[in-house]
């Protein structure tokens, strides 16, 4: 008779096994790999423009489970198999593996019933990764004369609100007073220490960014989509840096209007182009609502560059005035179809200003892939402009 070794797990064992689950460990590794892959392809993923929604702070990216590849035979058009049941040769019935009427071939993943993973990513995380991944420069804010104050923790006192009692510190006092080890006496009021707060003033770092979009008839749907994608990620990048970032969305044709964020990303229009109307609207808003001494003012202007000839001098005057007040003005020429980049009316205007030493820069957006190049360029140019000033 053989020896018997039998074991019954204790009731807690199930929990224990789950804690050290190898399957879960390897699953987490898979998860990390997926995130890594998503992160590596993020610039392509996010420049597509589908992610831009109003206000949501997370995006959901559907991803397939990773496949560990093996040598496999090509999918045959027909497969042979063996079944069991009461049938006669020549019987024909619907293949349940094909999902009934669907018929034909569904590409990929024949053997496993397609499990999709919905990866939820925080926009803040995405922006953080992107800035790291693409080594985008940070903005250099211009500290204005205005001050903001905040409360910071500073020192301890024997009196204070009960909620600010520092137990660790108080206990140390108790030990100090007692001197030698042994049974500790009880606390006295002498021992108690409360955290104190002090008011600190520091230069305000506030920013307002104007997104000015040409929505005239010459801007195609794709042009607008390009511009909005660029605006969206620029805005995320600025938000990353400023605690208080105000955004103003202005669209113009021959006239200019301000929009709210969700409306702005939906807006479209018709008619001619008068750039000065947009610049004037921005200047007006700065004067009315944002003190240029207190705010870092940024302007990003997206257009196809065709400005009405009659508007040339008005646009120059308006933009020169604006550039004097703003930290930085970025000009994005969305030119999906054009070949001569920055040779346009507005393009020349910005080039003129740049050579005169104003903090402006221009860039061309022809493809969705150009968005990141444009952002990098503007952020670097902005840094130079501030350092040069």
């Amino acid at each position, binding site marked *: 008779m053989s020896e018997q070794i039998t074991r019954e797990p204790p009731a807690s064992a199930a929990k224990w*096994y789950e804690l050290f689950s190898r*399957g879960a460990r390897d699953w987490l590794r898979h998860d990390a790999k997926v995130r890594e892959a998503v992160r590596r392809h993020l610039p392509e993923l996010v420049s597509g423009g589908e992610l831009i929604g109003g206000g949501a702070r997370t995006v959901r990216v559907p991803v397939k489970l990773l496949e*560990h590849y*093996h040598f496999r*035979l090509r999918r045959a058009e027909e497969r042979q198999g*063996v079944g*069991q049941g009461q049938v006669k040769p020549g019987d024909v*019935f*619907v293949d349940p593996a094909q999902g009934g009427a669907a018929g034909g071939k569904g590409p990929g993943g024949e053997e496993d019933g397609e499990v999709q993973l919905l990866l939820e990513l925080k926009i803040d995380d995405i922006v953080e990764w992107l800035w790291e991944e693409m080594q985008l420069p940070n903005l250099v804010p211009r500290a204005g004369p205005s001050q903001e104050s905040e409360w910071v923790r500073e020192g301890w006192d024997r009196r204070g609100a009960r909620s600010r009692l520092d137990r660790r510190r108080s206990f140390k006092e108790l030990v100090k007073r007692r001197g030698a080890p042994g049974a500790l006496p009880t606390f006295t009021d002498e021992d108690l220490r409360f955290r104190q707060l002090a008011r600190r003033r520091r230069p305000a770092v506030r920013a307002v960014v104007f997104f000015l979009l040409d929505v005239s008839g010459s801007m195609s749907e794709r042009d607008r989509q390009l511009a909005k994608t660029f605006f969206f990620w620029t805005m995320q990048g600025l938000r990353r840096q400023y605690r208080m970032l105000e955004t103003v969305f202005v669209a113009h044709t021959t006239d200019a209007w301000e929009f709210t964020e969700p409306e702005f990303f939906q807006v479209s229009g018709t008619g001619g182009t008068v750039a000065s109307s947009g610049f004037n609207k921005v200047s007006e808003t700065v004067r009315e609502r944002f003190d240029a001494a207190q705010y870092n003012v940024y302007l990003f202007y997206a257009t196809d560059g065709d400005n009405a000839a009659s508007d040339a001098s008005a646009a120059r005057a308006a933009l020169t005035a604006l550039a004097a007040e703003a930290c930085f003005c970025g000009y994005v020429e969305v030119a999906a179809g054009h070949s001569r980049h920055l040779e346009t009316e507005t393009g020349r205007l910005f080039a003129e200003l740049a050579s005169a030493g104003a903090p402006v820069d221009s860039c061309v957006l022809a493809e969705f892939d150009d968005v990141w190049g444009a952002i990098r360029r503007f952020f670097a140019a902005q840094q130079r402009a501030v350092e040069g000033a």
Partner: protein
Amino acid sequence: MSRGDWQSYIPRIEQLARGLGLEFHPVEFEAVPDAFMMEIAVYGLPVRMPHWSFGVRYIYQLIQRHMGHSRLFEVVFPGNPGHAYLAAGNGLAENILVTAHVLGHADFSRNNLLFQRCQTQVSERIVEHAAQHARQIQQAIETHGLECVEAVLDAALALEQHIDVDQPLRRPRFPEYAEPPKALADDEFRRRFAALEPGTAGAALASRQRAPLPPHPERDLLWFVAQYAPEMESWERDIFLAVREESFYFYPVFATQIMNEGWASYWHARLLREADFIAQQAYLDAIKCHSDVVRPVAADEEVALSLNPYHLGFALWEHIVAQEGLEAAFAIRAQDDDFAFIRNHLTRELAAELGLFRYRARDGKIRVLEQDVDALHEAILAPKYNFGAPTVLVRRVHTDGTLELGHDHALDRRGLDLERSRKVLEYVQRVWRRPVRLATVDQDGAEREISAP
């Protein structure tokens, strides 16, 4: 009824089994939580090396379990002693059945020649070996970093099925030089010939020829890469050889599945029938459980498009024992694998009785084909050839270190999936560290070569 009760049945069931002629090494029974059972099903071994691909299988398994598709009663590992893990959630009747089933497996793995051959190579303690590999790989991760080790495992596990079980596990390298040509007979003709042309006659004997690498197309890819990769680190070789050793263990399990499950099912049914010490109710419950396991088609369907190996094996063994007697059955369980078993014992009459049929699926339609017992055998066995993998061979290592692989598409009857194969080449290239090429055919039968990088 306390859960521990089933353990008191073990010695009696064992005694009964021995009395009927089963021979097995002692088996350690252990009841484990369901979560652990599921992991064994995913990894194939109780403790195995970490790799993210197991995580993917784990999720599929979790989903299946949530949908109520799969229920695991037991997993048994052959060896001396054998290890049997029983789900802690099993009831008494299920555990009695499972105990008898495990003894059937234990007898099979001890006596089947394929199992024996692989076990003498891998040793009878595969469970401990696999745990040792896992520890070794964990140490490699600590020394060389997760990314490096993972790259090696990606390649090794992708080639998991590409071994040659006809070669020994510890296999010597190929001879470096070609066999010297045989010395020519020293006869009258030779002497006269040498006298005529003194320069040429003896010269061929002197020079040694370097053997081509490999001397013949080689299908043991894991071994070949581990032996001949130009710049492989020794710890990387160890990982390749660890994966290969585990594949040697898995091969007989894979190649005798129908026989082995059928044998265990035959014996649990027979042992239960002959065990007079089991209470009536427990017996009925156990038999109910048995018929769930060996039923050919799901309860709510009339036709199944895949075979239940438990059912097929069980039916074949019942037939063999009835026709040829127990002694003949014992001989067959020792000598056959699934290929021999199906071809020799699945007769036309039995196939008709079981309602087995071949079908062809195309464009969402399934057409039942003519009865033909030889074609039926081949259709059942087709997915089992070559460890279930396409036949990929090492054709040549070039002087610049390029590894040239070839796919035997004539044997497999169609080409490889090019996208997947390219990914596998990328895995392999990272450990081979020289270009890797592979020739196969596309859907039109035209030669295609893919390569990495």
